[in-house]
Each structure stands twice: as structure tokens, then as C-alpha cells.
């Protein structure tokens, strides 16, 4: 049977995602949520379980977090956690029916990024001061 080229539904590529702030914020929120539940819970369990296992295990894990890679993990997760937290508050506001028009979506999106960046920087100022 002869087949004819049929119209295709738009692929992801046709959207200029880098110019669509709200969709980037949305998928980043989801990806960061998945990262927190997988790698995030792993690094947390490493810390709390080693503390409960005894001094030598805990010192080894604390030693790991003191390396440059350990700092990278901790810095990464402050950004991931605070972004998911701030954009999550946006989601809770949407659940009440607030803020579905485009200007408000862009405004609350910018506030979420700003708040996540501020909290991350604050955490790192406090973290480096605590060392």
C-alpha cells in the first residue's frame, strides 16, 4: 500500500525553549525533584547512617564532604533544594487558583529564581563562615 507523508505533531525542537522561561522553570522543577529523591536522599543517607554507625565511619564521610568534590555536591544540592523549594511555593499558590496569567507567571518565576539564588548564597556565606 502506498503511504503518503502525513503531518507530524510538533516535536520539542520546534519550540524555542530558551526563550520560553516558564516551560524551562517547569521542567527544571521536575528534574530537580527527581534529583533530590535519588542522589539527594543517597547523600543524606550516607551522612546520617554513618553518624549512627560510629566514629570511624562518620569521620570518613565527613572527610569526603571536605574534599573539593564534597563541596561541589553540597553546593549543587543547596541550589537544587532551594530552587525546588521556591518553585514548589509557586505550585502551592497555583493550587489555590492564583497567578495563571502570563505576566504573573513570568513575575513569580523571576521571584522564585531570585529567592533560590539568594538562599543559596546565604547558605554558602553561613557555611564558609562555619568552617
Amino acid at each position, binding site marked *: 500500500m502506498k503511504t503518503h507523508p502525513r503531518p507530524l505533531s510538533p516535536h520539542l525542537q520546534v519550540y524555542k525553549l530558551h526563550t520560553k522561561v516558564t516551560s524551562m522553570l517547569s521542567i527544571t522543577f521536575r528534574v530537580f525533584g527527581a534529583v533530590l*529523591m535519588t542522589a539527594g*536522599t543517597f547523600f543524606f543517607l550516607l551522612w*546520617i*547512617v554513618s*553518624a549512627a554507625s560510629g566514629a570511624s565511619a562518620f569521620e570518613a564521610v565527613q572527610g569526603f564532604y571536605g574534599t573539593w568534590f564534597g563541596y561541589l555536591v553540597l553546593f549543587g544540592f543547596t541550589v537544587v533544594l532551594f530552587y525546588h*523549594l521556591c518553585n514548589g511555593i509557586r*505550585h502551592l499558590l497555583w493550587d489555590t487558583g492564583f497567578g495563571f496569567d502570563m505576566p504573573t507567571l513570568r513575575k513569580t518565576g523571576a521571584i522564585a529564581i531570585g529567592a533560590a539564588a539568594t538562599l543559596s548564597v546565604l*547558605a554558602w556565606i553561613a557555611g564558609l563562615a562555619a568552617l
Partner: protein
Amino acid sequence: MSLETSLRSALGRARGLGSAKEGAASHWMAERLPAIALVPLALWFVFVAVIPNLGASHAEIVAFMGSPFNATLMLLTVLCGFYHGMLGLIVILEDYIQAHTARNIAVFATKLYAALGAALAAVSILKLSVGG
């Protein structure tokens, strides 16, 4: 919305709950209640539990978790976090994995991991706080 184009009443439509035949509202609400609790808990976790304990010795972490207040908040963070994370990850898996068997295995593995992780963390917290 006020102009009805269907003879079906609004109540009848709401009662149908779609093709799933059961409410998604319970899953939806179950994901959000811990989310609300996690807003203050996550801030406490980063600024009170983690940052002051960066580079802490074992004796210092035992002293920190020895406080009933700290142990309680850590336990709540763990339970809310794993529960909220489990429900969230299941939604993602259900959205993106097409094959039934693979999807069911992934969802089941997520539930197992959440149960294991939450129990492991809870036992660790209790051991640090009351197991002296």
C-alpha cells in the same frame, strides 16, 4: 461555564472521576501536605542541621542529635521528604515510561527505595538520639 452545553449535571460529571474510576485527588493531596510541611523543615535542615555541622566530629553530631527537638525535626524531615519524594517520582515515572511492565517495576522499586531509605534514616536518627 454558566451556559450548559451538556445535559449532564456538574455533580454527575464530578462523580464520574474520569476513566481512572477512582479519585486522583487523594494522591494529589498526599503529595502536597508534606510539601507544605517541608517548606520550614527544609530551611531548618539546611541552616540549622547541616551548615553548623559541616566538618563536625562524631561527638558533635551525637550531641546535636541528642537534643529531642533536633531529632524530632530531623525525623519529620525524613518522613515528609521520603513520602513526598516517592509520590513525586512515581508521577514522573508514570508520565514517561510507556511500557507497562517497566513502569510497574520502576514504580515498585521507587516504593521499596522510599520505605528502605525512610526506615534506615529513622533508625539512625533514633539510635543517635536515644540509643546513646
